[in-house]
């Protein structure tokens, strides 16, 4: 069965059950109504007999009262007689439950046993009782006949009252009048229609009661049938519901609650043929959820493992980096030690070469020929160059290793620059260069490390002299500039800087070389490097010295027109190393 069909069948069964319930309820209502009708018919029948009885009883009571009065002459009986008539004709109130023993009770002590109700003529009561015309006509006839009989009865009473005291003859005559055949005939005239009424009512009311009872029996049977049908449809609805759910509602609820609580692992058994039930779907859902859950857990585990691996990798990589850092530090230390050794081991024999060459060329170890002296001079010059290179390299290494400490003192840069310029003027003259020095007025005092500044300018000027062809021009300028004019990163921030510039009109530096210029072993281009021996360490030393002094360095150049090397040193507080 298709699950959708199964559900629609369930709802169809539910509607059927509901319809059956409504039919059964209506049937029950109808049954109850019929039962009530049976009761009503019985009640009517009873009332009818009571009314007929009252008429017969009143006739008998009248007869009894008049006969007793005639025999006893006691006026109380006459009064009773009159009262019975008055009640029957609606002239006096009718006592409640005015039944056949009422006057027997009154005769005992002349007390009225029950209080009176409204005064209603008996004929009116009969008319209201819903009798058929023939039934009513019978009773009316009986009443009329009873009223006619009162005439001889009143005549009999008048007869015994005609004399005072009553004569026996009159009493006898009156007694005869009340007991003769005519009287009995008149009595019969009253009782016969009542008897006919009894028969008619008996027939009619009994028929109604029977019909009602038959209807009730039919309704009862219908009720039973519909009740059984209701039970059947209920059972069917339950069966269909069970088939739809695949299990009991309680079990289904338990399963759903378990799934809802996040327990996807416990499997849901489904009976054969119940695969398309709600339990079947739930089972499929559980399998899906369990699978998704398992996949999620697997993914989480994989992720966790990845994380762990990553962490391990990070740890391993960090350790490797630490190791590398340690190695670099060791290497750096090794380099320092190597440099210390090299400065001694490299320079010592070089100094010996220079020393002995000097002695030779000066003729201090015996006179030499001019050629021999010349060769000794060559040895001395070559050695000197090599020593300069070694010294540069060692200084560079010491600067890079931070072994050089700054020792700044407040002083006037103009004076210091004058001394430096004087020292270089002779060299410029020898090289055939014009050397101009321009120091701005009023530079004032500032913290400067004489040795660093001197060394720095020595390097720049030596460079300029070296690269400017004979007949060229070299200038040294010094001035204060605001920090906005400083075209290089500086180590110490200040408002103003001392700008030292060494400019020449030599070959200049190609733009592509410029950024690499302040690195060791770069010297313009290869051709220049060959024609002007050197390592290029000089500019690197300048850069490091400028930085050591809290400042920075830069270069401006256009190939063919010359180069200008600049150094900015902070004015103001002494920079620390």
């Amino acid at each position, binding site marked *: 069965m298709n699950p959708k069909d199964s559900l629609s069948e369930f709802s169809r069964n539910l509607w059927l059950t509901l319809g059956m319930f409504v039919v059964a309820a209506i049937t029950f209502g109808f049954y109850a109504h019929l039962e009530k009708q049976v009761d009503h018919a019985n009640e009517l029948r009873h009332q009818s007999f009571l009314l007929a009885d009252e008429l017969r009883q009143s006739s008998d009571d009248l007869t009894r009262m008049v006969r007793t009065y005639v025999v006893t002459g006691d006026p109380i009986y006459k009064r009773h007689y009159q009262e019975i008539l008055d009640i029957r004709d609606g002239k006096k109130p009718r006592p409640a439950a005015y039944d056949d023993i009422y006057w027997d009770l009154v005769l005992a002590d002349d007390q009225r046993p029950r209080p009176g109700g409204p005064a209603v003529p008996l004929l009116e009561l009969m008319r209201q009782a819903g009798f058929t015309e023939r039934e009513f006509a019978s009773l009316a006839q009986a009443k009329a006949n009873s009223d006619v009989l009162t005439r001889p009865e009143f005549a009999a009473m008048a007869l015994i009252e005609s004399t005072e005291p009553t004569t026996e003859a009159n009493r006898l005559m009156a007694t005869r009048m009340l007991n003769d055949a005519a009287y009995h005939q008149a009595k019969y005239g009253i009782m016969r229609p009542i008897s006919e009424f009894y028969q008619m009512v008996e027939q009619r009311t009994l028929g109604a009661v029977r019909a009602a009872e038959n209807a009730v029996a039919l309704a009862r049977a219908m009720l039973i049938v519909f009740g059984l049908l209701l039970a059947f449809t209920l059972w069917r609805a339950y069966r269909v519901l069970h088939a739809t759910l695949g299990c009991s509602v309680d079990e289904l609820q338990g399963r759903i609650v378990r799934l809802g609580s996040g327990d996807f692992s416990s499997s849901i058994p489904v009976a054969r043929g119940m695969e398309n039930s709600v339990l079947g779907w739930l089972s499929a859902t559980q399998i899906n959820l369990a699978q998704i859950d398992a996949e999620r857990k697997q993914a989480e585990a994989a992720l966790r493992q990845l994380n762990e691996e990553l962490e391990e990798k990070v740890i391993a990589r960090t350790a490797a980096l630490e190791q590398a850092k340690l190695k670099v530090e060791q290497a750096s230390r090794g380099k320092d030690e190597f440099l210390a050794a090299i400065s*001694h081991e490299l*320079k010592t024999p070089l*100094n010996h070469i*220079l020393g002995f060459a000097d*002695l030779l060329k*000066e003729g201090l*170890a015996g006179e030499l020929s001019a050629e021999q002296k010349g060769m000794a001079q060559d040895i001395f010059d070559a050695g000197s160059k090599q020593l300069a290179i070694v010294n540069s390299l060692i200084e560079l290494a*010491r600067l890079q290793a931070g072994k050089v400490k700054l*020792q700044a003192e407040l002083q006037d840069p103009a004076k210091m620059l004058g001394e430096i310029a004087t020292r270089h003027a002779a060299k410029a003259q020898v090289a055939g260069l014009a050397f101009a020095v321009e120091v701005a007025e009023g530079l004032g005092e500032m913290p400067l490390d004489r040795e660093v500044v001197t060394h720095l300018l020595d390097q720049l000027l030596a460079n300029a002299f070296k690269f400017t062809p004979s007949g060229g021009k070299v200038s040294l300028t010094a001035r204060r500039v605001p920090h906005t004019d400083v075209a290089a990163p500086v180590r110490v921030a200040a408002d103003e800087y001392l700008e030292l510039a060494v400019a020449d009109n030599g070959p200049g530096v190609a733009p592509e070389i410029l950024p690499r210029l302040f690195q060791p072993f770069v010297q313009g281009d290869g051709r220049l490097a060959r024609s002007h021996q050197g390592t290029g360490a000089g500019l690197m030393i300048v850069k490091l010295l400028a930085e050591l002094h809290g400042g920075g360095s830069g270069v401006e150049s256009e190939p063919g027109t010359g180069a200008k090397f600049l150094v900015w040193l902070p004015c103001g507080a002494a920079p620390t190393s």
Partner: protein
Amino acid sequence: MEQTKQATILVVDDDEFNIKLLKKMLTIEGHAVRTAASGEEALASVAEQLPDLVLLDIMMPGMNGFEVARQLKADSRARSIPIIMVTALEDRESRLKALETGAEDVLTKPVNRAELQMRVKSLLKAR
């Protein structure tokens, strides 16, 4: 040219070329040169006979120049002998340290002939 007084100079250096070179530079000037290849040798030489001046290398295996200078300056007999220390270390610290230990002058390698001769002359004159 004024002829200075001939003096006995003790040259202390662990390097034979250095000794040879310094000895030549000083003998040209007419000084008598004694040599020592280590600090211990130098102290022994001074104890044997006081020189007029000591040219003392700093970096030597065993007892270094600083220690030799310290001991000489602590010796009442040798205290007045001028010491010129020779250093390959160009930094200011070693120069300062040399002067602190009592050396009269410091020369930096490579030793310039003229400078050496001038310093020696002036120290001997001051005596």
